[in-house]
Protein backbone atom coordinates (compact mmCIF):
# COMPACT_ATOMS: atom_id res chain seq x y z
CA UNK A 1 0.00 0.00 0.00
CA UNK A 2 1.40 3.45 -0.92
CA UNK A 3 1.84 6.18 1.67
CA UNK A 4 -1.12 8.20 0.37
CA UNK A 5 -3.46 5.20 0.47
CA UNK A 6 -2.25 4.33 3.96
CA UNK A 7 -3.21 7.82 5.14
CA UNK A 8 -6.61 7.61 3.38
CA UNK A 9 -7.40 4.23 4.97
CA UNK A 10 -6.19 5.52 8.35
CA UNK A 11 -8.48 8.54 8.07
CA UNK A 12 -11.55 6.52 7.07
CA UNK A 13 -11.03 3.90 9.79
CA UNK A 14 -10.44 6.62 12.40
CA UNK A 15 -13.60 8.50 11.39
CA UNK A 16 -15.72 5.35 11.46
CA UNK A 17 -14.44 4.18 14.84
CA UNK A 18 -14.86 7.63 16.43
CA UNK A 19 -18.45 7.58 15.15
CA UNK A 20 -18.98 4.07 16.56
CA UNK A 21 -17.72 5.09 20.03
CA UNK A 22 -19.85 8.26 19.92
CA UNK A 23 -22.86 6.11 18.99
CA UNK A 24 -22.36 3.91 22.05
CA UNK A 25 -22.00 7.07 24.16
CA UNK A 26 -25.35 8.32 22.84
CA UNK A 27 -27.32 5.21 23.78
CA UNK A 28 -26.02 4.62 27.31
CA UNK A 29 -26.86 6.52 30.46
CA UNK A 30 -26.20 8.20 32.84
CA UNK A 31 -24.32 11.05 31.14
CA UNK A 32 -21.19 10.65 33.24
CA UNK A 33 -20.87 6.99 32.20
CA UNK A 34 -21.59 7.90 28.56
CA UNK A 35 -18.75 10.43 28.77
CA UNK A 36 -16.28 7.55 29.11
CA UNK A 37 -16.83 6.81 25.41
CA UNK A 38 -15.85 10.39 24.51
CA UNK A 39 -12.36 9.39 25.64
CA UNK A 40 -12.38 5.93 24.08
CA UNK A 41 -9.52 4.41 22.07
CA UNK A 42 -11.24 4.91 18.69
CA UNK A 43 -8.45 6.76 16.87
CA UNK A 44 -5.89 4.54 18.59
CA UNK A 45 -7.48 1.27 17.43
CA UNK A 46 -7.77 2.54 13.86
CA UNK A 47 -4.22 3.90 13.80
CA UNK A 48 -2.68 0.83 15.40
CA UNK A 49 -4.58 -1.55 13.10
CA UNK A 50 -3.22 0.26 10.03
CA UNK A 51 0.26 0.39 11.60
CA UNK A 52 0.07 -3.37 12.21
CA UNK A 53 -0.94 -4.10 8.60
CA UNK A 54 1.60 -1.75 7.00
CA UNK A 55 4.60 -1.70 9.36
CA UNK A 56 4.28 -4.82 11.53
CA UNK A 57 4.00 -5.90 15.16
CA UNK A 58 7.03 -4.09 16.61
CA UNK A 59 5.82 -0.67 15.46
CA UNK A 60 2.49 -1.13 17.28
CA UNK A 61 4.36 -1.35 20.60
CA UNK A 62 6.23 1.87 19.72
CA UNK A 63 2.93 3.59 18.94
CA UNK A 64 1.70 2.43 22.37
CA UNK A 65 4.78 4.00 23.97
CA UNK A 66 3.99 7.38 22.41
CA UNK A 67 0.33 6.99 23.23
CA UNK A 68 1.07 6.76 26.97
CA UNK A 69 2.20 10.41 26.74
CA UNK A 70 -0.87 11.42 24.71
CA UNK A 71 -3.18 9.65 27.17
CA UNK A 72 -1.69 11.47 30.18
CA UNK A 73 -2.26 14.72 28.27
CA UNK A 74 -5.82 13.55 27.54
CA UNK A 75 -6.52 13.25 31.29
CA UNK A 76 -5.31 16.86 31.69
CA UNK A 77 -7.53 17.93 28.75
CA UNK A 78 -10.66 16.27 30.12
CA UNK A 79 -10.05 17.46 33.69
CA UNK A 80 -9.55 21.07 32.57
CA UNK A 81 -12.43 21.01 30.04
CA UNK A 82 -15.10 21.05 32.79
CA UNK A 83 -14.06 24.28 34.58
CA UNK A 84 -12.92 25.93 31.33
CA UNK A 85 -16.20 25.21 29.52
CA UNK A 86 -18.16 26.58 32.47
CA UNK A 87 -16.06 29.74 32.66
CA UNK A 88 -15.37 30.47 28.98
CA UNK A 89 -18.12 28.65 27.05
CA UNK A 90 -17.75 25.63 24.75
CA UNK A 91 -15.56 27.04 21.97
CA UNK A 92 -13.04 29.06 24.01
CA UNK A 93 -12.99 26.48 26.81
CA UNK A 94 -12.31 23.68 24.33
CA UNK A 95 -9.55 25.70 22.65
CA UNK A 96 -7.76 26.43 25.95
CA UNK A 97 -8.11 22.77 27.00
CA UNK A 98 -6.52 21.81 23.66
CA UNK A 99 -3.53 24.07 24.44
CA UNK A 100 -3.24 22.26 27.79
CA UNK A 101 -3.28 18.89 25.95
CA UNK A 102 -0.50 20.09 23.63
CA UNK A 103 1.59 21.47 26.54
CA UNK A 104 1.36 18.26 28.59
CA UNK A 105 2.02 16.11 25.49
CA UNK A 106 5.10 18.19 24.62
CA UNK A 107 6.40 17.90 28.18
CA UNK A 108 5.81 14.13 28.16
CA UNK A 109 7.51 13.79 24.77
CA UNK A 110 10.58 15.57 26.16
CA UNK A 111 10.64 13.07 29.01
CA UNK A 112 10.50 9.93 26.85
CA UNK A 113 12.94 11.04 24.14
Amino acid at each position, binding site marked *: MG*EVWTIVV*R*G*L*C*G*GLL*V*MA*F*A*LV*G*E*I*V*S*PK*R*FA*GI*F*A*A*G*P*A*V*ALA*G*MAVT*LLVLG*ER*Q*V*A*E*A*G*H*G*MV*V*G*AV*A*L*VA*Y*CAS*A*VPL*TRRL*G*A*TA*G*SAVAMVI*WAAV*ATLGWELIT
Partner: protein
Amino acid sequence: MNDDPGRIRVHPEKIREISLPGMGLRFAFGMVVSVIAGLVGQRWGVTAGGVFLAFPAVMAATLTLIQDEEHSRVPVAQDARGAVLGAVGMIVFAVCVWALAGRVPAAPAMALATVAWMIVSAILYLAVRRYTR
Protein backbone atom coordinates in the same frame (compact mmCIF):
# COMPACT_ATOMS: atom_id res chain seq x y z
CA MET B 1 -37.93 -1.41 40.58
CA ASN B 2 -34.54 0.32 40.96
CA ASP B 3 -34.70 4.08 40.32
CA ASP B 4 -31.01 4.75 41.07
CA PRO B 5 -30.12 7.58 38.63
CA GLY B 6 -26.47 6.49 38.59
CA ARG B 7 -27.27 2.98 37.39
CA ILE B 8 -25.80 2.10 33.98
CA ARG B 9 -28.51 1.63 31.34
CA VAL B 10 -28.58 1.03 27.58
CA HIS B 11 -31.28 2.75 25.51
CA PRO B 12 -31.17 1.25 21.99
CA GLU B 13 -34.27 3.32 21.05
CA LYS B 14 -32.15 6.48 21.30
CA ILE B 15 -30.45 5.52 18.02
CA ARG B 16 -33.44 7.08 16.23
CA GLU B 17 -32.78 10.43 17.94
CA ILE B 18 -29.12 10.66 16.96
CA SER B 19 -28.30 13.74 14.89
CA LEU B 20 -26.70 12.90 11.54
CA PRO B 21 -24.83 16.23 11.27
CA GLY B 22 -23.44 15.57 14.77
CA MET B 23 -22.26 12.12 13.71
CA GLY B 24 -20.82 13.62 10.54
CA LEU B 25 -18.83 16.12 12.60
CA ARG B 26 -17.51 13.34 14.81
CA PHE B 27 -16.52 11.34 11.70
CA ALA B 28 -14.70 14.41 10.37
CA PHE B 29 -12.85 14.99 13.68
CA GLY B 30 -11.87 11.31 13.87
CA MET B 31 -10.71 11.32 10.25
CA VAL B 32 -8.65 14.52 10.60
CA VAL B 33 -6.99 13.39 13.85
CA SER B 34 -6.18 9.96 12.36
CA VAL B 35 -4.65 11.59 9.28
CA ILE B 36 -2.60 13.98 11.46
CA ALA B 37 -1.39 11.04 13.59
CA GLY B 38 -0.45 9.18 10.39
CA LEU B 39 1.41 12.15 8.90
CA VAL B 40 3.28 12.80 12.18
CA GLY B 41 4.19 9.09 12.28
CA GLN B 42 5.49 9.16 8.69
CA ARG B 43 7.52 12.34 9.29
CA TRP B 44 8.83 11.90 12.87
CA GLY B 45 8.38 8.19 13.58
CA VAL B 46 5.70 5.87 14.93
CA THR B 47 6.27 6.85 18.59
CA ALA B 48 5.59 10.53 17.79
CA GLY B 49 2.48 9.53 15.82
CA GLY B 50 1.41 7.48 18.85
CA VAL B 51 1.11 10.64 20.94
CA PHE B 52 -1.69 11.81 18.61
CA LEU B 53 -3.56 8.49 19.00
CA ALA B 54 -4.80 9.93 22.31
CA PHE B 55 -5.85 13.28 20.85
CA PRO B 56 -9.24 14.33 22.34
CA ALA B 57 -11.16 13.89 19.06
CA VAL B 58 -14.64 12.88 20.28
CA MET B 59 -14.53 15.25 23.25
CA ALA B 60 -13.55 18.19 21.04
CA ALA B 61 -16.36 17.33 18.61
CA THR B 62 -18.87 17.15 21.48
CA LEU B 63 -17.80 20.54 22.83
CA THR B 64 -17.98 22.04 19.34
CA LEU B 65 -21.50 20.69 18.81
CA ILE B 66 -22.90 22.60 21.80
CA GLN B 67 -21.15 25.91 21.16
CA ASP B 68 -24.47 27.68 20.49
CA GLU B 69 -26.46 25.87 23.16
CA GLU B 70 -25.46 27.53 26.40
CA HIS B 71 -28.07 25.56 28.33
CA SER B 72 -26.19 22.39 27.40
CA ARG B 73 -23.21 23.23 29.60
CA VAL B 74 -24.33 21.07 32.49
CA PRO B 75 -24.75 17.82 30.47
CA VAL B 76 -21.45 18.58 28.71
CA ALA B 77 -19.77 18.98 32.09
CA GLN B 78 -21.14 15.52 32.97
CA ASP B 79 -19.76 14.17 29.66
CA ALA B 80 -16.38 15.72 30.41
CA ARG B 81 -16.30 14.29 33.94
CA GLY B 82 -16.97 10.85 32.48
CA ALA B 83 -14.31 11.49 29.87
CA VAL B 84 -11.70 11.97 32.63
CA LEU B 85 -12.43 8.38 33.69
CA GLY B 86 -12.21 7.15 30.09
CA ALA B 87 -8.94 9.06 29.69
CA VAL B 88 -7.41 7.34 32.73
CA GLY B 89 -8.52 4.09 31.07
CA MET B 90 -6.67 5.22 27.94
CA ILE B 91 -3.39 5.35 29.88
CA VAL B 92 -4.02 1.71 30.82
CA PHE B 93 -4.85 0.92 27.15
CA ALA B 94 -1.59 2.49 25.95
CA VAL B 95 0.54 0.80 28.63
CA CYS B 96 -1.06 -2.58 27.77
CA VAL B 97 -0.26 -2.18 24.05
CA TRP B 98 3.26 -0.93 24.79
CA ALA B 99 3.97 -3.80 27.19
CA LEU B 100 2.23 -6.62 25.30
CA ALA B 101 2.62 -5.89 21.57
CA GLY B 102 6.29 -6.96 21.52
CA ARG B 103 5.59 -10.16 23.45
CA VAL B 104 2.29 -11.47 22.01
CA PRO B 105 0.75 -10.86 18.56
CA ALA B 106 -0.37 -7.22 18.30
CA ALA B 107 -4.02 -7.92 17.40
CA PRO B 108 -4.86 -9.78 20.65
CA ALA B 109 -2.75 -7.24 22.55
CA MET B 110 -4.97 -4.45 21.19
CA ALA B 111 -8.14 -6.42 21.99
CA LEU B 112 -6.90 -7.05 25.55
CA ALA B 113 -5.99 -3.37 25.92
CA THR B 114 -9.52 -2.37 24.84
CA VAL B 115 -11.04 -4.72 27.43
CA ALA B 116 -8.67 -3.27 30.06
CA TRP B 117 -9.74 0.29 29.07
CA MET B 118 -13.41 -0.62 29.47
CA ILE B 119 -12.94 -2.43 32.80
CA VAL B 120 -10.76 0.30 34.36
CA SER B 121 -13.11 3.08 33.17
CA ALA B 122 -16.20 1.24 34.47
CA ILE B 123 -14.56 0.50 37.84
CA LEU B 124 -13.59 4.17 38.18
CA TYR B 125 -17.16 5.19 37.30
CA LEU B 126 -18.60 2.85 39.94
CA ALA B 127 -16.06 4.06 42.53
CA VAL B 128 -16.81 7.75 41.83
CA ARG B 129 -20.54 7.03 41.94
CA ARG B 130 -20.16 5.26 45.29
CA TYR B 131 -18.17 8.08 46.89
CA THR B 132 -20.20 10.99 45.50
CA ARG B 133 -23.62 9.71 46.55
